[in-house]
């Protein structure tokens, strides 16, 4: 039986996101030309929450898009049945913008590699930042986050589950440790 523990409960997530929103504005020197891009699935909800928090702090809404990286995965030839593709919707020009990629968990870095390649096909941002709720270590590519909710080293067989109200009915980050 894997042991299950809560890394962040709903209040801890709320506090982390509030801090991340402040950090985001600070690192971008304001909100001018900043856009958020949430990675499907749960990055999309987190990006929308960060956008609302930034609006509450700065009085200006941040444009928010969705990106599905399935078609840019580097293991597409290896996986058997095709994965279901999520919606991509980037309702703004990326040229000369500061793009903040938002995802729930950063692990191997392969998703972010795919996202960077895909974004490059949409335009040429001035700068790209990476914002994640959980950094669980275990990188296989030279990619690092700029803004992090919580850092937690994990083993390869562990699972980190990010639950969000919009999809899962409650907010939580849970860690399922594999035995042994």
């Amino acid at each position, binding site marked *: 039986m894997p042991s299950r523990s809560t890394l962040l409960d709903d209040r801890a997530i709320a506090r982390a996101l509030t801090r991340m929103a402040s950090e985001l504005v600070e690192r971008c020197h304001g909100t001018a030309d900043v856009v958020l891009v949430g990675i499907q699935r749960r990055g999309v909800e987190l990006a929308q929450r960060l956008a609302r928090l930034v609006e509450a702090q700065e009085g200006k809404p941040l444009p928010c898009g969705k990106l599905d990286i399935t*078609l840019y995965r580097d293991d597409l030839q290896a996986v058997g049945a095709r994965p279901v593709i999520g919606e*991509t919707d980037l309702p703004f020009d990326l040229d000369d913008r500061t793009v903040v990629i938002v995802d729930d968990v950063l692990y191997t870095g392969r998703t972010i590699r795919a996202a960077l390649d895909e974004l490059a096909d*949409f335009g040429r941002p001035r700068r790209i930042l990476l914002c994640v709720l959980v950094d669980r270590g275990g990188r296989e590519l030279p990619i690092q986050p700029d803004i992090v909710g919580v850092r937690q080293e994990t083993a390869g067989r562990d699972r980190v589950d990010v639950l969000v109200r919009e999809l899962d009915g409650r907010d939580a980050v849970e860690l399922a440790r594999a035995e042994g």
Partner: protein
Amino acid sequence: MSPATLGKDLVGLETLSAAQILLLLDTAERFKEVSERPIKKVPALRGKTIVNLFFEASTRTRISFEFAEKRLSADTVNVASSGSSVSKGETLVDTARNLEAMRIDMVVIRHHASGSAEFLGNRIRSNVINAGDGKHEHPTQGLLDLLTLRDRFGKLEGLKVAICGDVTHSRVARSNIWGLKKLGAEVAVCGPPSLVPREIGQLGVEVMTRIEDAIAWADALNVLRLQLERMTAGFIPSLREYNRVFGVTRERLARAPKDLVIMHPGPMNRGVEIDSDVADGEHSVILPQVTNGVAVRMAALYLLAGGSPDWQHQGGSE
């Protein structure tokens, strides 16, 4: 929940389940957006080699497949029967096996013989997609028609679709009937008795012999092309006569209880099965059908490239 998969080949809609058809439509829904991007290309099929093997004339379908392949980053080769060794008498299987010897991954085939796509799929290792086999099926056309109707009406369940005209010679009609029925639509076919096969009722469709009845009943009309090249003799008295009795005209549509959505698989015989003011009218979705065709073909290519690991090579020579 594990998503449905398609298997090795796409030969028709008759052999697909409703879940597989919905998987194709939902995947196509995502691919629509790719064609609207500044760079209309994703790397999903990078390194895959696809041969478009067209034994019959085609503009729309062949170009649509080619765009779909290129937008997925596949490498493509087009083979037409004229100018290839097919015109020297090589058999279909020999042609395909020679192509396979050059390490291809997929074949898109259009052929005048019904059943040719399935026949080929059973004999080669590559994925096979049917781009029209004789009078049998044209599955990607059926799918793009379903997608276009779903775009327009939000759902297919309970929708009334009348397929009008030359049903006998039409693979589009058969693919539409199977696809629409599986997704819960009601289907009628309408045409002169000489162009509607007697057994078509066995597919669970209503048969109408007056275009006025079809127009009064349907939510959407799929107007088929009168396939003059497949008619050897005597199916209709004359084109003018056909238009007078079965033509979809503005006057006839004006008497319908509601506005009908008008589809046509192309190429159109304007002034024969459909009048120009209907084809170009506000309720025509003939060009959206063409746009959706690329998305549907991208979906089929993408899903089939997942392959079917349990499939065994059956007719190989090695």
